[in-house]
């Protein structure tokens, strides 16, 4: 499975984690990333409001010719965005596993402040090992 990047957004639509797993990707400025995450948060909220089906969640999957974006929102309001290549299966299972890693190495880390940018060495390491190891 080819995963391009991972974004984690906190409750207030702030970007707390951004990582590219593919070297070929162009890097944006950090401000651009913040704008991206804010925009997505807003679009997600709008989508859940204008949906014809009552009480639906926001955008879950966004698929284009060049990439596939899967969004997983936790019950606590944290959003995990996984960008992978198009027509990819099992991205939701990957996201769940990433959520598990997040709960283990970020939330249970006493040196991490909730809602702040994620700077946990162990999380980075385990994430990299997991992403590389997906068949």
């Amino acid at each position: 499975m080819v995963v391009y990047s991972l974004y984690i957004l906190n409750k207030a639509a702030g970007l707390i984690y951004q990582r590219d797993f593919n070297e070929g990707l162009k890097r944006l400025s950090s401000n651009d990333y913040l704008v991206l995450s804010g925009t997505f948060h807003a679009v997600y909220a709008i989508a859940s409001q204008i949906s014809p089906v009552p009480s639906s969640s926001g955008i879950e999957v966004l698929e284009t010719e060049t990439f596939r974006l899967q969004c997983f929102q936790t019950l606590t309001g944290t959003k995990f965005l996984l960008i992978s290549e198009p027509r990819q299966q099992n991205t939701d299972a990957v996201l769940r596993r990433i959520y598990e890693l997040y709960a283990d190495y970020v939330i249970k880390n006493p040196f991490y402040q909730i809602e702040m940018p994620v700077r946990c060495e162990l999380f980075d390491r385990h994430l990299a090992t997991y992403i590389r190891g997906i068949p």
Partner: protein
Amino acid sequence: MYTDPHAIYLNLSCLDFLLVELIPMSERVVEVIGERKTSNGNALPAILSEKDGRIGEEERRGAVFKHVEGLGYRVGQGLVERFSQDRPRFTDVLDVMKFICKDLWHLIFRKQIDNLKTNHRGVYVLTDNSFRLLMRMSTEVGGLDTVTRAQPYLWFPCGVLRGALANLGVQATVVAETTAIPVAVFHIQALRQD
């Protein structure tokens, strides 16, 4: 091992989160107690008061240690009371140590102590190569910084060990240290042998 048909189950993550919050809470408690002492207008000994009247760093650290370790002490006492129920009597201190390393550690941390060393004169060194409480810790800087900041989180297990030993009849002092996350080493000095 302990199959109790009326057992109630609780998620182990709750203990992890509780212990993580224990240290900041103790620091806040010590801070408040310190402020209360200075505002009372009592005569403070020289080491306690600094330029602005607040507790010195060394004193504060000692107070937090006492608080956290005291909490652990009570927990340790209660734990051995409950879980040494159906065991045969302990023959000597080494037997007590083996109980701690295998049974007690398994109860609290789901694993046994990796290494037990002794000089047969009352000094025991317990090594845990993947100590549960340290497994998730990592800071931005990593390495030495994490080790120094992780120190307070070892005080609670020290207390648990000291309380457990005390209730089994072994008076001891317990010191813990870590050189690399997640290895934890506990030095136990038994003062009196029963």
